[in-house]
């Protein structure tokens, strides 16, 4: 393709057709939601012309549906809108905080959870939070829609499981029941507007006695992709999520991490900090669940 082009389909079928036609012609396609990653890449590391498919004009990418069993968040909803939704903030405080951590007020006016996921950076803040709450990615393609667990969506640094003729429609999250909550924490060297050195998301459920009956723990920025750490969840389940259990979960996170050393942090530092973040996020999720 010698020049850029732009399409703004208004339905899932139209979008899939545009994507499939362009993929069949051998030309490059990139979906555009808030554009806060795409436009930066277009003007720096990746100037190759392509078809930009704006997915913001489709009903399903803009919907928020808080059902009795399931919560649906459209892929193109900007963080600012999520943050203005008090019901979502009460139900999924950790996930919404993770979206709120990304960028300035200006960035939040455009950047979406779906875009953060599709950009598939190892350091994407919403990704561990999505994995922790058990989000399923709803992907539209020529054969209809399919669902993939968030931990299986990203396949490597900047890559994911979608083909050129597919796009992310939204995220389905089980509605948290009683005594269930989540938290996400990341470490950055200043108070905001930076990229995570390490991050940890924890979602858990307590019974009437404060014993943890279900947990999911995910870590970010310490491996090529965000990871679901089953050993950390196992360390919490069956406990009161006390300091001993949290330390065991933290140790499991440090063990599961396979970080790199770069300007943001060393391997040793990231491995330690991700455990600390797991411990602190676990305590916040516990306190929220028992509130």
């Amino acid at each position, binding site marked *: 393709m010698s020049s850029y082009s732009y399409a*703004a389909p208004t339905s899932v079928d139209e979008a899939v057709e545009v994507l499939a036609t362009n993929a069949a012609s051998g030309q490059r396609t990139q979906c555009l939601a808030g*554009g806060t990653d795409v436009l930066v890449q277009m003007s720096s590391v990746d100037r190759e012309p392509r078809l930009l498919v704006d997915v913001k004009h489709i009903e399903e990418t803009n919907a928020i549906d808080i059902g009795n069993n399931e919560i649906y968040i459209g892929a193109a909803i*900007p963080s600012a809108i999520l943050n203005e939704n008090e019901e979502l903030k009460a139900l999924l405080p950790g996930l919404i905080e993770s979206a709120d951590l990304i960028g*300035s*007020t*200006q*960035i939040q*006016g455009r950047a979406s959870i779906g875009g953060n996921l599709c950009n598939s950076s190892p350091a994407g803040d919403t990704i561990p939070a999505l994995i922790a709450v058990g989000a399923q990615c709803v992907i539209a393609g020529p054969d209809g829609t399919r669902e993939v667990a968030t931990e299986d969506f990203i396949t490597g640094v900047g890559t994911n499981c979608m083909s050129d003729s597919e796009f992310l429609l939204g995220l389905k999250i089980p509605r948290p029941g009683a005594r269930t909550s989540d938290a996400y924490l990341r470490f950055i060297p200043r108070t*905001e507007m930076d990229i995570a050195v390490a991050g940890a998301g924890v979602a858990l459920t307590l019974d009437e006695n404060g014993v943890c009956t279900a947990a999911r723990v995910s870590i970010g920025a310490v491996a090529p992709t965000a990871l679901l750490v089953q050993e950390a969840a196992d360390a919490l389940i069956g406990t009161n999520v006390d300091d001993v259990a949290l330390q065991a979960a933290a140790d499991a996170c440090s063990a599961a991490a396979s970080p790199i050393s770069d300007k943001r942090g060393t391997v040793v530092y990231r491995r330690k900090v991700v455990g600390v973040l797991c411990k602190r996020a676990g305590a916040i999720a516990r306190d929220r669940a028992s509130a």
Partner: protein
Amino acid sequence: MAKVHVTTSVNNQPQEFLCEPQESLLNCLRDEINLTGTKEGCATGDCGACSVLVDGRLVCSCLMLGVEAEGKEVTTIEGIAEPDGLHVIQQKFLEHAALQCGICTPGFIVAAKALLDKHKDPDEETIRYWLAGNLCRCTGYDKIIRAVQDAAKELAA
């Protein structure tokens, strides 16, 4: 590909322009419709100099395509002043000397307008966090914060 025809509204005026699909809204504002009040600082969404409102929401115009403005309401620094003179925020920036070189100022004023449209009585922390995406290398920020606080007080009066 041929240029795309975009029909939009800028500062409550209908606007049409032609642009390349990959052209930023910032460049379209400056080069296609000659509204040069909106500044380019970093062009990567870090500095906020290019801040505009799109359908009332604060965004970096360097991180939005011109073609995405189709059917939208865009407000730039040129649309902030009142018919009979400066907006209170602009006046307070002058009174508090909240600018030196002036490159960041349009972005700060548009961002402050978005803040005061949403929060009538923001505390200092709220103002500082809201404006964290606007960088100023001259003032040290303090005068800007004072100007916004004073504007909020006057707007509430």
